[in-house]
Each structure stands twice: as C-alpha cells, then as structure tokens.
C-alpha cells in the first residue's frame, strides 16, 4: 500500500475577482519509507499542498489517501508535521514541547515523559529537555520540532522548509542529521524546500512544481546511494540533477 496517494487534486482560492487557481491536477504517490522533496517557486502552492496533506486545509477537488484512508482533518497518529522556524511554544520547555501532542490525547504522564525523552535522544538533544526555546540555538529548536513531529510515531512526516531560517553550515548539518533520523525510523518523509542542493542531497525523488497554478512539471529520481555523504555534492550526477531541476524551474 502507498504511504501517500494524491489523485487529481486541484485547489481554487476564493478571491475578490472570482476564483484564483492555486493548485492544478496534482497526482502523486509516495511509497512507504521514501524521502520525497517538493521544490518550486514562491507562491506555487507547495505549502498549501503540504497543509492539505496534513489535513489543515481542504482542497477544492481531488482526494488524498494516507495509509489507504482519506485525510480530512489533522490526524497526528498518521501524519506528523514539522513547521518552519519558531513554531515551538516559547512558554514550554523542550521536553514539554515534545510531549505536547501526547498531552492533547491525555496520554499518562509517565508514558509521555518516556516517549519525549526517547525522541529528544533520537534527535541528539539528550539532556536538553529542561531548556526553554529561547535558550536553544536555531538548529536545536528545529531538532525539538522534529522530536515533536515524531513523538506519536506517525508513519508519515511532513516538513515545511524546516531549515530555511538556519545558516548554511547548520543547515547542511541538520540535513545530514535528518537523514540519520530518517534511516533509524524509516518514516515516509515529504519535505519542502527552496534549496536545490538540499533537495538533491536529501531526496529519493524530487517533485518540481511550476508557478501558479501549481502543477507537478517534473519528477526527478535521485540515484545517489545511501547513506549520502557531503562528497557526493561534488559529483557529476549531483550537478546534473541539480541543473535539470534548475532548468525546469527557470523555463516554467
């Protein structure tokens, strides 16, 4: 069974001068355990698409299946979401931020603590649970966000430009860390980014979207072996894939 299946999804925004087509005829399938990256120009609707996959927004037409069942509302047991920077609750510690989804479901305290500690250890923040977000660096905050996204152990993790606000070096490190976490948990990941280097480095498959209305104009399979290494960025294959995606974005 596919982890995510989207069939002819379209979305039209109700604007002042009638409807504005935002997403047009999107179909995609993601196999379980795959890492799929979506790239596209600003305003192409990739974040909207992600919000729909998360059940946070409703498409005009088309269906989204996750684990074979439609997504109509947020379901954190099937889909975890990691947002752009600053999505942690500043009034909660790293531990409490990570526990948050469990606390909503009324999971008992001991179980919550155990799960959150396990997740913080997974993302490399063992011993930082008592810190507040303002006491953490940008990269550490996003590690907590990932821990929070994974705490309910959903098969699918959606990530909306999670490293966009980080400096280049931290961003590379976090990408590498994410691949480590992914290989340990074998989640299905859908990841949105602006960075073509990040896209090729992380992905099994890159979906390229056009400007409004957003359509999928290319599906690029990345044949680079796992685990990925920084050296691969200097290879011809990497450069050619990056170039192909860039050409697609430029001409549409």
């Amino acid at each position: 069974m596919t982890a995510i299946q989207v069939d002819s999804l379209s979305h039209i925004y109700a604007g002042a001068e009638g409807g504005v087509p935002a997403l047009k005829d999107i179909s995609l399938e993601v196999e379980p355990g795959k890492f799929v990256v979506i790239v596209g120009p600003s305003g192409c609707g990739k974040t909207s698409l992600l919000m729909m996959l998360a059940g946070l927004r409703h498409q005009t037409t088309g269906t989204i299946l996750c684990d074979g069942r439609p997504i109509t509302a947020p379901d954190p047991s099937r889909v975890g979401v990691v947002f752009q920077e600053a999505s942690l609750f500043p009034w909660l510690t790293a531990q409490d931020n990570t526990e948050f989804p469990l606390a909503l479901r009324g999971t008992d305290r001991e179980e919550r603590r155990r799960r959150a500690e396990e997740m913080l250890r997974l993302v490399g923040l063992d011993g930082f649970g008592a810190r507040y977000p303002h006491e953490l660096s940008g990269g550490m905050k996003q590690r907590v966000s990932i821990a929070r996204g994974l705490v309910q152990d959903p098969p699918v993790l959606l990530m909306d430009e999670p490293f966009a606000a980080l400096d280049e070096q931290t961003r590379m490190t976090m990408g590498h860390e994410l691949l480590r976490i992914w290989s340990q948990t074998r989640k299905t990941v859908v990841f949105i980014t602006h960075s073509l280097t990040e896209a090729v480095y992380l992905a099994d498959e890159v979906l390229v979207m056009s400007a409004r209305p957003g359509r999928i104009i290319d599906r690029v399979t990345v044949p680079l072996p796992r685990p990925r290494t920084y050296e691969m960025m200097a290879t011809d294959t990497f450069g050619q894939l990056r170039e192909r995606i860039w050409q697609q974005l430029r001409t549409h």
Partner: protein
Amino acid sequence: MSQVQIVSARLALLAAILAAWALLPKYGIVDPRLLPALGDVLAMLGKQLARPVVHEAIGVTALEVIVAFVIAVPLGAAIGVLAAENEYFGQIFKPMLFYVFSVPKSIFLPMFILVFGIGFPQKVAYAAFSTIFIVIMSATAAVESVKTDHVLVARSCGATRLQILMRIYVPSMMPVLLETLRISMIFNFTGVMIAEMYASRTGIGHLIANWGENYQMPELFSGVILLAVVAIAFNEAVRYVEGRVSKWRT
C-alpha cells in the same frame, strides 16, 4: 553594574528620601506646616488606624475598588476579546473605542453624580467606566499577541477548540493579561479616589480631601502613606506573578 550594587543604590535612594522627609521639616529647612516630618506622620497614621471612622472609610473604599474592578475587568476583557476575534465587531467598534479612550474620563464625573447620586453606586460606576477602556484595549492586544503559527501547530497535533483556547491562547495571553490587571487597577483606584474626593460622605478619598481643606497636614500625609502602601503592594504582587509566568518572553 552588578545586581548587588543596583539593589544597594536603590535602598540608598529610599533611605535618602525617608531621611530627608524625617529631618528637613525638623530643622525648619522645609516648612513643617506644609510637610510634617515623617515621624509625626507615622505617629498620626497609627492614631488614625485606631479610629472607627477611618476603619469604616477603609472598608467603603476597599469595597468600591473591588466591586468596580470585578465589573470592569471581565466585562472589558470580554469586549476586547470579541473586538479582536470577531472581524466585523472589531472593525465597527474599534475606532469608537479609541476615540472614547483618548478623552479624560473625569469630565464625565458630574454626569455620574446626576445619574447615580453621590453614594456607593456612583463611585463604582465611575471607577468601572474609567477602567474599562484600558482593559478593552489591552485585551485586544493580548489576543493579537497569540501567534497564528502556534494555533496551526496545535491543530496539526489534533487539538480541539477548547484545547487551543486553554493550551495556546491562555499561556500566550497571560503576560499581557497580568499587565492589564495591574494597569487597570491603577486606573480603577484613581477612579474611586477622584469620585470620593469630588463628592462623597465617606471613604479614604473623602477623608483626604477634607484633611486637605482643613489644613490638617499630618492627617493628610498619613492617608497618602496608607494609599501608597496598598497600591504599591497590589502592583508588586501582580508584577511578581507576571515575572514568573513570562520567564519565556525574552
């Protein structure tokens, strides 16, 4: 400057003011008929606090302050939240609220006397009236301080509306709400005092106004000290809680 130095400097400043108040009138550098020495004022305060008339006045004033506060704060907060959450309500009423907020409330006091007389209801009504606008403004600001991103995260985690209210809105708004509580008490207390001093038969404000008119300066200053202590104690208590719940705000 280190924390210790700052605290010592503050204490030194307080000591200097109290010493000046104690000594300058004693040596005639300041006219003691206008500013009685601190020692005399404190002695007078002790004497006043033993008088049943003063007890009654304190009781009346305290009740007026509390009742006006209990009316103005929840009502103002509800209107403020409505103005921030309901787009149409906000767009229609906000400009009017801003206009009224800018007008000094004391000019309406004669009207309150005409409508409510000079008793308890007039004090409460006027104090609540002079407080409610700042509460509305601050409550609106408190709601607007809630980040939509945080609400989105909570929804993605499967939060219900009630959970979003309790776990996102309340903690986000708490620092601003406590600040509101503090500032609205200042307005509220001022409202009661003005109403009592302007026209009243009892209350601390009434006593102070009388003492002033009768040139009873030690009595007047003992009233000032009493009010100052109560006002500062309330303000600092809320500020302490504020500091504890807004540690995360940097």
